[in-house]
């Protein structure tokens, strides 16, 4: 797959009802895990869902959703697995090849993923964003009709401080912030007690400070990474687990909040 032509100025994606960026600013907070499990949870609640891996340099979605033997030459995209449609640079490159690309090419690939892939009618297209506030975020803010950004953090101050920058970036480019989800919030021991291994309350505090909804806490569970590595997200493999239930609750919160949100206004144009 090769990006075609010059990048368009602004895309219209009428077949996609909600285009949601799952972002943070911070790396390692679980954006891809949240994206994969949220996508499946939304699907399990009856929505038509797509998942686009916007991390061109470090695509995780192929591994997390068990799609690792795609023939790039066949070009049969989007890949359909677990009831959702997905696209990733990992499918284009194959194997463990590195994407050695500068910013403008990152933009071209992201626009190509949005426009050259037959997504069909979707209620949700989730964008699994890379860490940072740079090329990928700017490319999508400039060209894609992003409905809102879901910001992922963990409880620690070091994550919160970077997540704040991510929120600030979305504000500056006029992408509404849907809310905050706190990953790795607590661990449930065998006795049923919760231990807050990485601190407590950070996500709620950030949400209050940024004046956005706090959409939920996701517990630490060893099965999350086991499932991520095995390619079958925890919401599907262990649906009765507390973490899967938390993802189902998150999916409901996301859907309810989006339905209640005023859509962002597009800027007026002028023909000279």
């Amino acid at each position, binding site marked *: 797959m090769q990006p075609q032509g010059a990048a368009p*100025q*602004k895309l219209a994606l009428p077949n996609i009802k909600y285009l949601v960026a799952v972002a943070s600013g911070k790396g390692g907070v679980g954006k891809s895990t949240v994206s994969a499990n949220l996508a499946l949870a939304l699907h399990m609640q009856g929505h038509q869902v797509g998942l686009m891996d916007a991390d061109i340099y470090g695509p995780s979605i192929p591994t997390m959703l068990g799609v690792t033997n795609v023939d790039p030459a066949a070009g049969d995209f989007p890949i359909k697995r677990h009831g959702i449609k997905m696209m990733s640079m990992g499918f284009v490159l194959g194997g463990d090849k590195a994407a050695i690309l500068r910013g403008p090419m990152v933009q071209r690939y992201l626009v190509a993923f949005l426009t050259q892939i037959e997504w069909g009618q979707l209620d949700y297209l989730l964008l699994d964003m890379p860490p940072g506030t740079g090329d990928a975020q700017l490319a999508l*803010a*400039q*060209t894609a009709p992003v409905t*809102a950004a879901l910001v992922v953090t963990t409880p620690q101050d070091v994550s919160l401080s970077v997540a704040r920058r991510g929120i600030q970036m979305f*504000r*500056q*480019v*006029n*992408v*509404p*912030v*849907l*809310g905050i989800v706190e990953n790795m919030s607590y661990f449930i021991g065998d006795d049923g007690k919760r231990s807050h291994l990485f601190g407590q309350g950070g996500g709620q505090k950030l*949400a209050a400070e*940024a*004046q*956005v*909804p706090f959409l939920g806490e996701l517990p630490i569970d060893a099965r999350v990474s086991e499932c991520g590595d095995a390619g079958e997200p925890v919401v599907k493999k262990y649906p009765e687990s507390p973490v899967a239930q938390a993802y189902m609750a998150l999916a409901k919160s996301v859907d309810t*909040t*989006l339905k*209640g*949100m*005023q859509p*962002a*206004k*597009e*800027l*007026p*144009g*002028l023909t*000279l």
Partner: protein
Amino acid sequence: MSASGATAPVPLRLSKDGPDRLVIEWDDGHRSLYEWQHLRANCPCAGCREEREQPPDPFRILKPNELAPLKPAHIEPVGRYAYRIGWSDGHDSGIFTLEFLRALCQCANCHK
């Protein structure tokens, strides 16, 4: 608590005031006025910024597309946060954020 978007002013309408000026009406009631030449003179692209930092070269040979009077060719939104202006000489790399556009306003109130 609702999902919060931007709180900075956003344009409601763009229009022309004759051939030489751009008008932007904002949702906070402000009406901005710009000479097109003023916008080009303040193009925020890296190339123009670098050029403005250099002393003018009196021996610079003008390119053919610089010989005709400079006019705006097109203006379009960039996402929901900026505008890109394309010019008759082909230059179009400047992205004017809404914040920057407000700062460049030449209306009588802003120019007091």
